[in-house]
């Protein structure tokens, strides 16, 4: 069995096992073990990868995504173990729902790995649909009024997005058929990209618009983002971490693949300006929305929209440097945002609420957790010397000469977002202690592991990794 198959088989088997095994301790450990095994197998892809088949392939681009996904998947499973233990104690989750939750977690990992490793645009679509269904079920798992509404909203908007993406996929097949011929080959990614120059440009253009709207909904780009804050706020926090840190990336990855396809056709429209526009709108809009948030998870959900906007902007600008910046920013955002959600999960459990007004003085009452959250927010706001500062700096400098006005708007968005985040952080972390102050029993290892990585990346990135990213940036065109 090759490594690519293994990153699919391990989560699939684990999902089956977790669905039937009873007992919290065994299943939480099994969940961690499966995620860790998947991560190790994914790492082995750096050293040797199988030949591309009609369904699966690994190249320099998706290798980065797969390793990032399996890594954050593993650390989140560690966080999830301590988070879920608390939820069981206070009775928010029952053991049968826990089994369901763990099984769905592995189904989600399977779906995301499949979407990333797929060499077939049909399989990729199916995988993203599966990931959507799994997350819808997990968002609604608490079965409260708000959770149900969030799940319903996510389900409806996500399905519409996914339906539009399928229409775009069908159009790509129609465009490819005359030159490649009927059958499987006309949906195989490696074949498509090598023959893209001969495709009908008009069909490709229309297809891309559908794909942008469809997968863009899943990325959370404004104005298609309405599902995102609700889904983040009402689901279990590990799911918020995986949604923000990984699933948004997976949808963006799909979009990037099709962008490459259009770039390979000289007569098709350049997809850059469309992505740049949506990126800037998302970033600026979300930055303003940060101000009036009362719920801590909703606030960081809007921050995710802002950062996905910045990343989409960078990829839309294109060119080796901007693509490099986009890739780096995506990696840094995944690590930082999931670390923040780890912290937020523990904060919400300590305080027994997600309302910002009921939290206060966290650095005094729970110093480790409080300063962890402060560090996370400092990182996500883009202050030096952490990783996000560097990637944002690169995004801005690499685009400034080409689009000075747009870049100024983007920088304004970043600054407005920064101020908004610190305004709220001030209430939560400093000042008069408010709300319960019991010590959390949680494990802080995943959170600080992520923050340490982000910190190191802000100061020093290994030359091999830089070379790898530069190579991928060139691939993206």
């Amino acid at each position, binding site marked *: 069995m090759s490594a690519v198959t293994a990153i699919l088989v391990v989560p699939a088997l684990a999902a089956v096992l977790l669905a039937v095994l009873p007992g919290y301790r065994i299943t939480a450990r099994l969940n961690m073990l499966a995620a860790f095994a998947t991560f190790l197998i994914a790492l082995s892809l750096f050293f040797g990868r199988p030949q591309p088949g009609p369904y699966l392939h690994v190249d320099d681009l998706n290798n980065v995504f797969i390793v990032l996904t399996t890594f954050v998947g593993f650390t989140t499973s560690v966080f999830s173990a301590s988070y879920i233990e608390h939820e069981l104690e206070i009775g928010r989750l029952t053991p049968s729902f826990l089994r369901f939750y763990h099984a769905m977690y592995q189904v989600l990992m399977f779906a995301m790995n499949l979407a990333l490793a797929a060499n077939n645009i*049909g399989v990729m679509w199916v995988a993203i*649909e599966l990931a959507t269904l799994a997350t*819808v079920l997990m968002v609604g798992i608490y*079965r409260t009024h708000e959770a149900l509404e969030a799940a319903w909203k996510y389900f409806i908007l996500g399905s519409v997005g996914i339906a539009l993406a399928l229409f775009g996929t069908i159009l790509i097949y129609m465009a490819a058929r005359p030159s490649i011929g009927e059958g499987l080959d006309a949906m195989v990614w490696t074949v498509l990209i090598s023959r893209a120059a001969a495709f009908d440009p008009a069909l490709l253009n229309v297809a891309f618009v559908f794909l942008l709207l469809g997968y863009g909904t899943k990325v959370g780009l404004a104005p298609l983002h309405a599902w995102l804050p609700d889904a983040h706020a009402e689901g279990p926090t590990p799911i918020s971490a995986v949604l923000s840190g990984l699933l948004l990336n997976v949808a963006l990855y799909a979009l990037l693949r099709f962008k490459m396809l259009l770039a390979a056709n000289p007569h098709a429209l350049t997809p850059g300006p469309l992505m740049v526009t949506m990126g800037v709108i998302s970033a600026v809009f979300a930055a303003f929305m940060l101000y009036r948030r009362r719920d801590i998870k909703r606030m960081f959900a809007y921050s995710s929209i802002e950062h996905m906007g910045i990343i989409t902007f960078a990829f839309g600008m294109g060119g080796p440097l901007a693509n490099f910046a986009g890739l780096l920013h995506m990696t840094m955002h995944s690590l930082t945002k999931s670390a923040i959600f780890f912290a937020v999960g523990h904060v919400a459990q300590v305080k027994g609420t997600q309302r910002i007004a009921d939290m206060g003085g966290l650095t005094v009452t729970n110093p480790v957790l409080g300063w962890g959250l402060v560090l996370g927010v400092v990182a996500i706001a883009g202050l030096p010397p952490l990783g996000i500062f560097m990637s944002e700096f690169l995004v801005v400098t690499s685009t400034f000469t080409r689009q000075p006005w747009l870049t100024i708007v983007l920088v304004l968005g970043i600054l407005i977002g920064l101020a908004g985040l610190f305004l709220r952080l001030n209430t939560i972390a400093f000042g008069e202690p408010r709300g319960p102050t019991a010590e959390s029993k949680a494990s802080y290892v995943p959170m600080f592991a992520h923050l340490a990585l982000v910190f190191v990346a802000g100061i020093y990135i290994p030359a091999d990794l830089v070379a790898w990213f530069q190579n991928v940036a060139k691939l993206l065109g």
Partner: protein
Amino acid sequence: MRGIAFDIAHLLAGSLVLVSFLQLYQDRLYALLNIFAVHAFVLALSVAWQAYVQGAPHLYVTALIALVFKAIVIPVALHRIIVRLGIHREIEKVVGVGTAMLLGMGLVALAMVVMLRVTEGADPLAREDLAFALSVVLLGLLMMVTRRNAVGQVVGFMSLENGLVLAATGAKGMPLVVEISVAFSILIAFIVIGIFLFRIRERFDTVDLQALDRFRGERQ
């Protein structure tokens, strides 16, 4: 033969658009479900015809699934839910019948203009099919927007999926996706019916989404 094959495919796909329009203005849930069953039936016929014309026997499976699940099982199941919940009263609509029909016509015109223009090179059968399919997709979207009732939205989504199946079968020789996407649409329908409607009932004793609108955006 070529002429009649084209005409029948054209007729069936056109009927699907027509039935979509019929769905738009139904203001009773029972009637809406019946029309949806007709919608799925026409889709099954259309897919079966494509299977025959293209000589692609696997498409008969798709047609059979559309016939059995979408035209019979799901409408019957939704019917039962409606009976058990006692919600067979009128559907609330955000916009009136006239506006909905006008919007629908605008969307169909848009679909025709876009698809016919960009597919000039493609073979005529696939071309017209694609234009009709996009019309059905857009009308499904419009229906989801104009309904506030959960059952109405689910029906809207399923008719949108019917449009996608029409597009996928019209694209000659498209591999594997038809089966998988149909399986997925059934899965979605089951998830919606099984989990959401029952959970909504268990919590609020209603499937009227207006009851859910208490939570809008921020918690105070």
